[in-house]
């Protein structure tokens, strides 16, 4: 069923700033509006499964895109890995000392009786990647009892920013904007599965502009915006 | 129209098992506190559903346990004055009074202004019940029931919270209602004066049972009922016809035994009245006494003497066609040698037969 106005994009909530910017640029360029509904990837995927009138889905997790793909809810061949992100360790305060994770820094000791905050380590992507990274660095078992999990990355950031917890693991794109924290280490690329935001056109979409906008997301203009917000554009690496 | 009541019911330890007939007119339920009067009225109203029995009003069966008949309360067309008021707190006095008009077709019935005037609640119409005094509430409750154009009036101690003057204003109204309509009234009161004045039928209750029921003047003038009624309530009725309104304010009536003088009775010449005379207001004399302030002296014959356990005696007399009761001391009964067949004179102070004990012949 066609929707009355323009294009409807379902996107992971963490993309709000960038996508709002890109949609604005697109409108300036084409005169066409894009409506974006931000929510958790799981909600959005389920809504699409239940017939939501979305044209494009951008997920924060590969799993939910896989889920829709196996349910044949996305247009064959349209799936693409749009963005990447980096995982970083942050500490409270602007000028916290760097931590060298690869050199085997004792994170547990640094924490003392404080907490390491992460997104939910079994379900929210940032948490899952974080757990993988800590495990591969051999740190997980020592810090597991000090990990406090939040339902999203922003909540983790808030806990560190407010000083409630000394350290946290978040995306680089989130850490950038918060003045109350400093990035004290980046996790090595190989320590966790690649962080990927896949996108695809929804199978039921009939909007003529879906393809155009989806392509625009991979344009150099969009790339600038993504980079400026701390994301890593992965254009042209589509796997569909 | 007549109400026929027969049912049995239990609450906890208390069991109720009653049967009586209430013809048109006022049927008084009389009995001690806790004897089951309110429960009987509630069953007739349909607020209690008895376990067994049958209640019929005129041709309509309101309740029949065997035939599983049950007319819902709101279809019974009642006017119920509750023992505890139960005014609607969210409605003004006027709205309380006219509440039933929202449901019943507007029939001629009682005039609003008349009822309100008689109850003296004209000044309260726009107020809400919460601020009313006890007696004011009760008057509004009476008005509400009267204005419901009921086929059956249930009144549970309606006048208990009122002063004598107010009672004296409302009682004649109830009497008129009794006289002019054929709706049965079930009336609970602890005041024998009220009962004696209003009741055409009397139902004596005790511990959930009907002890005695029948025409009020018969029940009241039977010396055997004195213990059940209480001595102060015993009395009998004279029947008399209004003959003259005299200029000093007295009314002359003619009873079968002789003339009677009462303070002004508001009844047309020729009207036949029933005058309740309490046993304790009668003095007896073997000779016709002279020079007494009491104006009413009737020749009578002793028909029965009932000596109580105490110092008192109840004498039943025949005065003309009527029976009278007199309560005197046993000592006087002996001194005057009062025995069945003895002739004597009954002295009634005219003023003792006060306005409130004169009623249209029932």
């Amino acid at each position, binding site marked *: 069923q066609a929707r009355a106005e323009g294009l*409807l994009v*379902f996107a992971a*909530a*963490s*993309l*709000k*700033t960038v996508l709002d910017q890109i949609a604005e640029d697109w409108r300036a360029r084409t005169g066409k509006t894009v*409506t*974006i*509904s*931000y*929510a958790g990837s799981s*909600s*959005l995927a*389920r*809504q699409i499964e*239940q*017939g*939501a009138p979305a044209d494009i889905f951008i997920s924060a997790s590969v799993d939910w895109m896989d889920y829709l793909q196996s349910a044949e809810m996305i247009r064959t061949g349209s799936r693409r890995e749009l963005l990447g992100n980096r995982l970083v360790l942050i500490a409270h305060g602007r000028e916290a000392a760097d931590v060298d994770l690869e050199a085997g820094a004792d994170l547990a000791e640094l924490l003392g009786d404080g907490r390491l905050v992460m997104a939910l380590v079994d379900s929210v992507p940032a948490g899952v990647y974080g757990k993988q990274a800590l495990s591969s660095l051999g740190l997980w078992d020592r810090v597991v009892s000090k990990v406090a999990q939040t339902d*999203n990355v*922003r909540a983790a*950031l808030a806990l560190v920013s407010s000083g409630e917890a000394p350290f946290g693991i978040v995306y680089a*794109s*989130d850490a*950038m*904007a*918060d003045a109350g924290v400093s990035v004290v280490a980046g996790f090595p690329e190989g320590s966790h599965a690649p962080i990927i935001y896949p996108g695809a056109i929804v199978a039921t979409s009939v909007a003529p502009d879906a393809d155009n906008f989806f392509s625009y997301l991979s344009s150099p203009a969009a790339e600038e915006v993504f980079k400026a917000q701390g994301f890593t554009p992965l254009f042209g690496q589509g796997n569909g | 129209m007549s109400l026929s009541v027969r049912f049995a019911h239990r609450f906890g330890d208390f069991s109720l098992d009653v049967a009586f007939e209430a013809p048109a007119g006022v049927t008084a339920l009389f009995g001690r506190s806790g004897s089951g009067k309110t429960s009987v009225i509630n069953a007739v*109203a*349909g*607020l209690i559903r008895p376990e067994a029995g049958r209640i019929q009003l005129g041709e309509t069966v309101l309740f029949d346990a065997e035939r599983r008949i049950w007319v*819902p*309360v*709101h*279809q*019974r*067309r*009642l*006017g*119920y004055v*509750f023992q*505890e008021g*139960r005014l*609607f*707190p*969210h*409605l003004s006095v006027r709205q309380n009074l006219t*509440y*039933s008009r*929202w*449901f*019943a077709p507007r029939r001629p019935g009682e005039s609003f202004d008349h009822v309100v005037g008689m109850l003296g609640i004209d000044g309260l119409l*726009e*107020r*809400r*019940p*919460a*601020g009313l005094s006890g007696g004011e509430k009760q008057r509004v409750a009476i008005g*509400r029931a009267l204005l*419901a154009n009921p086929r059956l009036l*249930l009144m549970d101690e309606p006048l208990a919270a009122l002063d004598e003057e107010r009672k004296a204003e409302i009682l004649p109204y109830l009497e008129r209602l009794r006289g002019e309509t054929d709706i049965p009234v079930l009336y609970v009161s602890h005041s024998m004066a009220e009962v004696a004045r209003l009741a055409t039928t009397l139902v004596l209750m005790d511990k959930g049972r009907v002890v005695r029921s029948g025409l009020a003047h018969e029940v009241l003038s039977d010396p055997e009922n004195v213990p059940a009624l209480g001595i102060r309530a015993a009395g009998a009725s004279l029947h008399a016809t209004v003959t003259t309104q005299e200029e000093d304010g007295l009314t002359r009536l003619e009873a079968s035994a002789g003339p009677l003088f009462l303070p002004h009775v508001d009844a047309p010449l020729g009207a036949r009245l029933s005058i309740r005379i309490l046993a304790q207001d009668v003095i007896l004399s073997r000779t016709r006494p002279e020079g007494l302030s009491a104006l009413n002296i009737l020749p009578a014959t002793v028909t029965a003497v009932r000596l109580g356990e105490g110092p008192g005696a109840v004498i039943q007399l025949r005065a003309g066609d009527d029976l009278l009761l007199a309560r005197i001391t046993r000592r006087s009964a002996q001194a005057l040698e009062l025995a069945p067949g003895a002739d004597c004179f009954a002295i009634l102070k005219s003023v003792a037969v006060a306005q409130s004990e004169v009623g249209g012949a029932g």
Partner: protein
Amino acid sequence: MADWLTPDQWSAVTLSLKVSFWATALSLPVGVAVAYVLARREFWGKQALNGLVHLPLILPPVVTGYLLLLTFGRRGAVGSFLEDTFGLVFAFRWTGAALAAAVMAFPLMVRAIRLAIEAVDPKLEQAASTLGASPGWVFVTVTLPLILPGVIAGAILAFAKAMGEFGATITFVSNIPGQTQTLPSAIYSFLQVPGGDAQAAQLVLIAVAIALLALLLSEWVGRAVARRIAGS
């Protein structure tokens, strides 16, 4: 106001008002009926109904939203039936947001009204029926006016809840600006990205202001009603 809010924020405010208003207004009669039945009637399955009514309170909102999606979504049993039969669509419309808000607020509304009904003296209702009022009329002329403060309390609780409802709404009808993005969803969006706090705070203040205004209004109405009953 429109000046310092973006059109999307502005539409979130008006949408929230619309959603909360209809959620409250349409569920109120149902709430009164359910509360009445729970307070005054005995029937088979009463406790099941009671449990059902409370369910949205017990379940995490996401679960409620998901269940709504499964039931009232386009593919859901009830949803497709309603769409085919009445052309009524909840999925991804503001009507769905209103449904979600109504469902989430329902237990609060019912509890408040039920408490009020239980406090009404049945003797007054009896008195009304002796005066010829059928059960329906008794309810309208006696019970309802007497429970008015409770109904108002229930409605305001529901409205406030609807203004703040988020989890079930976003799960059920998503977060589409101009269509299903209510104030709380908009707040959520801002809280999910770095630097959105200030805008979120702005919207929070608007939400609080609206709800408090409604609250004050309800207090005032409730008091007026109570005073009327306590005698002019």
